[in-house]
């Protein structure tokens, strides 16, 4: 199971995390990997801290739940507070947060990477709703789990009619955001990059 990537996507209900997890999972399928996607369905999924887990592996995936996250994405403060303690291999798990909503505390050993995901989505694309795809861009740029081109196509495939390009743009913007570096482990945001 050396290949097994366990990804937790977390945030508030309505931030599009479930859809992001499905897009990520579909991208993994298109990239010829095995994948399992799960999500939280409880009342908390409506507000507060909602969660989706995606496990990607080349081998068959048996146990479908995330136990030992290798990637954690947090789009709001509540989920950051709730899910950070789930990390077992501190320092090895890639932690990406949206600095628009998450303000720490960022303890050094977690090596948290902070990007103004939602703010960029609003300012650069003009649509907050694409923050989820932008987040996927950052995530994939940071980790390279899925072939970038396949991922882009998957986004187009799953996006609501007419919004494919906009969503791809957000995804690409995530890559640039990544390239320009993060406010790692700090309450810091980076400047507009385009």
């Amino acid at each position, binding site marked *: 199971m050396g290949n097994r990537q366990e990804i937790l996507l977390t945030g508030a209900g309505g931030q599009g995390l479930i859809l992001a997890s*499905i897009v990520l*999972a*579909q991208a*993994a*399928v298109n990239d010829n*990997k*095995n*994948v*399992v*996607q*799960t*999500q*939280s*369905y*409880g*009342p908390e*999924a409506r507000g507060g801290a909602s969660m989706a887990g995606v496990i990607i592996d080349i081998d068959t*995936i*048996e*146990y*479908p*739940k995330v*136990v030992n996250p290798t990637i954690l994405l947090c789009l709001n403060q509540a989920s950051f507070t709730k899910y950070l303690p789930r990390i077992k291999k501190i320092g090895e798990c890639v932690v990406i947060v949206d600095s628009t909503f998450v303000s720490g505390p960022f303890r050094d050993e977690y090596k948290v990477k902070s990007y103004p995901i939602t703010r960029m989505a609003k300012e650069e694309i003009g649509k907050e709703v694409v923050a989820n795809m932008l987040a996927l861009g950052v995530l994939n740029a940071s980790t390279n789990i899925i072939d970038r081109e396949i991922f882009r196509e998957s986004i187009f495939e799953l996006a609501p009619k007419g919004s494919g390009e906009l969503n791809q743009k957000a995804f690409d913007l995530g890559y640039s955001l990544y390239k320009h570096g993060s406010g790692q482990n700090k309450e810091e945001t980076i400047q507009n990059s385009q």
Partner: protein
Amino acid sequence: MPETKPVLMQGNEACAEGAISAGVRFYAGYPITPSTEVAEKMAVRLPDLGGVFIQMEDEIASMAAVIGASIGGMRALTATSGPGFSLKQENIGYAIMAEIPCVIVNVQRMGPSTGVPTAPSQGDVMQARWGTHGDHPVIVFSPASVYETYYLTIAAVNLSQKLRQPVILLLDEVVGHMREKVTIPKDSKLMVEKASDKVPADWKPYDDKGLAPLVPFGFGHYYHVTGLFHDQYGFPTGDPPQVERSLERIHEKLMKYRDEVILTNYIGHKEPRVVIITYGCTVRSARAVVKKAYWNNRMPVGLLSLQTLWPFPDKEVKEVARKADVIIVPEMNMGQIVGEVERHVKDEAEVVPLNRYDGEMISPDQISEMIGRWLA
């Protein structure tokens, strides 16, 4: 069967797709978490296929409508979860008695009562066996993956038609809600032929001699269908020998097709000391463990996974019991199928339950630890 490109699919969706592949064109249901996606998928798909989707006023009506449609000759399915499954029981018994094919999906959630609607559980295993009143035969399948859900739904529909017997598909919330990569066959000829096309001249709707095909209403065979005990023509009788015979007949037909009805799968060591017997999503945790223990470390362990829960795979279980010293039965309940294992295994092996009932999956670690205790 030509395969199409792999897709990402949810367990509940796979159930809907499997049903459609097997020719189901009628869905009646009432929404309930965590089964609702089956209905939602059907609502999208069936109209395009010329099928019928109807949301009924409750689960009782849903079950009734499914039976009604089946008598009309349409393959029919309904899906629900615990509370709705409880409500459907009376009419499930009717379908068994009147021998009307249909498939009932129960995506189990944490009970009893309203429980924790979004939490997984395997708490309805015994209810699936005994939920309706009176002695009644049941067939219950329990898939462990999205593909198995697709596959077993097809098997359920076809078997149900063949045996004129309702089949219950017990999913759990984990399998129902999880999305997974699957490759599903396209344009498969999975449907069996229409029974009504070859009605024998001396056809009787409830032929004493065995399995008569169901001739749908509207074809000029004016028979009677009732939930009362009935004679070969469907008419009520209280005559003791006839009552006895009818009851036996509806039970025997399942065993006549045992090979198609009872599905299990064994992986692991040929001479195991410890065997895990489990079903549904718990198979996944067990398989993770057994693969590691046996494939990687050649430990004397094995896994018997049950796709069929009822009729209980007694022969299969006894067979592993003869080899093993210990049988571990992990279940997400307080111990249900383990009782049946004990009953058949008797003193052949030690039977050890491993139960979890807090609304969470049993983890591979819990199983490893238990195996460790016995192999130490």
